């Protein structure tokens, strides 16, 4: 893609965003029956309007509130990153171990499949009961989701390492640990990375669901959403949703960057990092 192409795409994206915002603001301002108050073609009560959202954002960002939007966003981001990190490292380790030990994998298989097929949302009350209404419950919930995504990918990756690569490492004098470090881990990493982008999204989902139930002590944007539902405040809800969207995009981009650095040996990343 050339530079000019890039610019044109960016321009179009901005134009669409501007058009959407203008349409949103305009359509939610037209009354259905001109003299009857409160009756709109598209009612801002449900979806709010950009100007109202901006105003609420400014208010929530100011020092006038007990819990600012920054604090809530920070809480959500921190819990997501923790859930993600713990989930990725445990899932990766478990995937490597079971991927290289056929017998062990067969022993654990039914448990893993059974636990993974539980809808994670169903675990929320139990996790809350065990870990309380705080940050910990959110992290645990994110972890239960991320762990399995990363585990299954790494497991496949560790199992499909080319046997001849392992043999050639042995002939070059590698010990078991050296084979693991220099052949199996880098080879499995390509598979693991494929699971990281979905993992961060699911970590965010886990955290927000945790926050729905977590109350004010857990804080976070999920708390803002539930609170706005209580007060029927669509503008606040939109502030929370847009913030979540931005957080999601930034995290996904960060992972893409990391992937391009660590997997720069792959032909598809050649010359891009």
């Amino acid at each position, binding site marked *: 893609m050339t530079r000019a192409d890039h610019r044109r795409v960016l321009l179009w994206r901005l134009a669409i965003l501007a058009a959407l915002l203008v349409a949103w603001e305009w359509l939610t301002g037209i009354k259905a029956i001109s003299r009857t108050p409160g009756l709109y073609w598209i009612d801002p009560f449900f979806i709010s309007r950009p100007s109202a959202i901006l105003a609420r954002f400014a208010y929530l960002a100011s020092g006038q509130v007990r819990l600012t939007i920054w604090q809530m966003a920070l809480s959500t981001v921190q819990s997501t990153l923790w859930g993600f990190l713990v989930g990725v490292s445990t899932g990766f380790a478990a995937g490597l171990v079971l991927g290289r030990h056929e017998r062990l994998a067969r022993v654990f298989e039914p448990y893993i499949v059974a636990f993974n097929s539980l809808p994670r949302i169903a675990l929320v009350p139990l996790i809350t009961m065990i870990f309380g209404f705080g940050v910990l419950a959110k992290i645990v919930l994110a972890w239960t989701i991320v762990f399995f995504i990363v585990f299954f990918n790494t497991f496949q990756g560790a199992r499909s390492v*080319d046997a001849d*690569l392992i043999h050639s490492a042995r*002939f*070059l*004098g590698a010990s078991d640990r050296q084979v693991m470090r220099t052949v199996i881990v880098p*080879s499995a990493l390509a598979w693991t990375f494929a699971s990281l982008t979905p993992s961060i999204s699911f970590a965010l989902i886990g955290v927000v669901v945790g926050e729905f139930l977590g109350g004010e002590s857990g804080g976070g944007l999920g708390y803002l959403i539930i609170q706005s539902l209580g007060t029927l405040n669509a503008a606040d809800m939109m502030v929370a949703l847009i913030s979540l969207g931005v957080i999601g995009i930034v995290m996904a981009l960060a992972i893409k960057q990391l992937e391009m650095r660590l997997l720069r040996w*792959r032909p598809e990343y050649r010359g891009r990092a």
Partner: protein
Amino acid sequence: MSERRPRIVIRDLAKTFREGGREVAAVQDVSVTIREQEFVAIVGPSGCGKSTILNMIGGLVAPSAGTVEIDGVRVAGRVPGNVGYVFQKDTVFPWRTVARNIAIGLEYRGVARTEQARRVRDAIALAGLEGFEEAFPATLSGGMRQRVALMRTLVVEPEILLMDEPFGALDTHTKLDLHAELLALWEARHQTVVFVTHDLSEAITLADRIVVMTRRPGRVKLVHDVALPRPRDVIKLRETDDYAHEYGRIWHVLGEEFAGRA
């Protein structure tokens, strides 16, 4: 030649694979003795068990019958030390640069960094890979990747080299280049080499002795001493009458195998 001590002794070697209830005899009754500093080629039609023999020498496949001894020690289920193996398949680590691929064996052995760097630099110069030190294998040609695989094996200075059709996937020109390079490297160190190939001219160019295999199940059909002087020039060699003579003799025997019934 016969005064040299035996390094690889293969006795009555056989391998039968079980494949979905069916038994496939891959190798039968193979007995060969390979001596110190000898360059032996194993030639035979595809599927005759050449790789299987090499894998049994390297301890990757357990024999169904018979034994392999290296320096008097029976090879059993593990990779023997002092042996280098160059696989037919590309086994250069794609996530390591050329320099770090060549260094890997030294790294495994805990050789000091500065010494590693020095030996890698020498190896890269020998293989004509200057300028590609920091390149990843995916950006190299097949010939260059096989050079990396060869240097990676040689840099740890194995006394015995097992090579399974290492140049099988290369075009004729690149192949001849690599023959010349391999022979030059071998003249310098005189490793004991077992070189598997289905290419008769390759075998004659490189080897002191050629073991011709039958079709599956692979047995030894003929053991032939190559009476060509060394050092050999891989290009000029092919124009000589001696080469043509060697080729003709083995081709006749091998032809029987390719043609059908022996």
